[in-house]
């Protein structure tokens, strides 16, 4: 694999819940180190697409490839479970509602998966927890339980937890949507820092300013299709499609 190869490739992604088609023939490629933002109103399918990448919401049609390996390949149940667990170890995911494990401290949240899946020693795990929590500015809360942390702090620990598996790709599903406005910035800072380190990221967000400042490319989704995509300066300033203009107009009004 060279640096130029498509790193994440989604081909003809299709997803239906019963008769409701939420993703209609979506194609998307992301290169190594690229940061792609996905915007759109709720119900547009953007979260579903993101969750399909690590098979939380399996597609009903189409293919997803990560670094040359098909994520959603057809395998018998047992083999598929093994395969998908291995794939997921390479993809970090950050959720809107953090989903930290409430019965574990920040340290345990970060070290649980690496200790269980990579069989690292307690000392290594400890060093890993310190390293990752330091990176998100949470080292001084290493032995706190999630209930003792603010929303922004929880989300930073959740990012550290995902990073501790040394993922090749990070997925952010509205990571700041559940936060009080004054806590958004601390999480955005961490994401920006990851961007500077050239982490490949796909970010579903409602924050246009943030998307504009970190993303290499932004997709606007509506009713299960990608309406328009392009560099943020083009998509935000000079969108080609009427639907995009309408969404942005409404969104900016809403933000006021």
């Amino acid at each position, binding site marked *: 694999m060279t640096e130029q190869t498509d790193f994440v490739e989604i081909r003809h992604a299709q997803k239906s819940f019963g008769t409701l088609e939420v993703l209609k023939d979506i194609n998307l490629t992301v290169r190594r180190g690229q940061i792609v933002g996905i915007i759109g109103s709720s119900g547009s399918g953007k979260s579903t697409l993101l969750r399909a990448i*690590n098979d*939380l919401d399996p597609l009903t049609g189409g293919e997803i490839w990560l670094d040359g390996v098909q994520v959603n390949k057809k395998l018998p149940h047992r083999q598929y*479970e093994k395969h998908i*667990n*291995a794939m*997921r*170890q390479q*993809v*970090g*995911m950050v*959720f809107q*509602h953090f*989903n*930290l*494990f*409430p*019965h574990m401290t920040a340290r345990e949240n970060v070290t*649980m*998966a690496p200790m*269980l*899946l990579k069989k690292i020693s307690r000392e290594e795990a400890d060093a890993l927890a310190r390293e990752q929590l330091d990176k998100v500015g949470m080292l001084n809360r290493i032995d706190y*339980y999630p*209930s*003792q942390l603010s929303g922004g702090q929880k989300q930073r620990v*959740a990012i550290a*937890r*995902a990073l501790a*598996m040394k993922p090749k790709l990070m997925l952010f599903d509205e990571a700041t949507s559940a936060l009080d406005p004054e806590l958004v910035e601390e999480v955005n800072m961490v994401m920006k820092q990851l961007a500077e380190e050239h982490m490949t990221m796909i970010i579903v967000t409602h924050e246009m300013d943030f998307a504009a400042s970190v993303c290499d490319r932004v997709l606007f989704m509506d009713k299960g299709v990608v309406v328009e995509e392009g560099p943020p300066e083009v998509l935000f300033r000079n969108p080609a499609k009427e639907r995009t203009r309408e969404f942005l107009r409404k969104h900016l009004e809403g933000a006021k």
Partner: protein
Amino acid sequence: MDLELMLKVYPFFLQAAWVTILLSVLTALLGLICGTLGAAARLSRFAVLRFLGAAYVSVFRGTPALIQLFILYFGGPQVGIQLDAFQAGVIGLGINAGAYMTETIRGAIIAIDKGQREAARTLGLSRWQATYKVILPQAARLMVRPLGVNLNMLIKATALVAAISVVELTYTAQRYIGSTYKPFEMFLLAGLLYMIIIYVTGRGVAWLDRRVQIT
């Protein structure tokens, strides 16, 4: 009220209370085993197991425990099941309690936010690893109080085995009524001892519940 008589027979009741306690402990253990298996079946990804789990719950919660005991103890020998009264009591009540505990355990597990499992799975944990590292430790904390309610009910249900002549508290009370003709005193004494057992158990459950809560 004949207090003198109550004091005189009290040691025999105390002995019988130990039988009730032993019966309760064994029933609770068997109930927990059945309840765990039942909940696992009800939450299985295999439809056959889900059906069996649901059938177990509706059969044993849908019929009187007394009938279940009678079928096992009196009807058992007819189909080749030979149990003494104590064994039949423990097995009958245990399976019955297991049906209630199935629902308690299942309820606690499904009460855990689905985001917890998702977060565990996205890290690469298998279904089972996510269950025992993330779901069960949280569900276990939620289970303590409702299982305490099951335990309370189960202790009181041990009185039923008097009907198949296990010499526990209720049976002992009945026996002493036969010789003293003092049902008020005898049942009062038995009731008092049940209350003490249940009070102590209840405090134990409350203590455990406080202990396992996350800070």
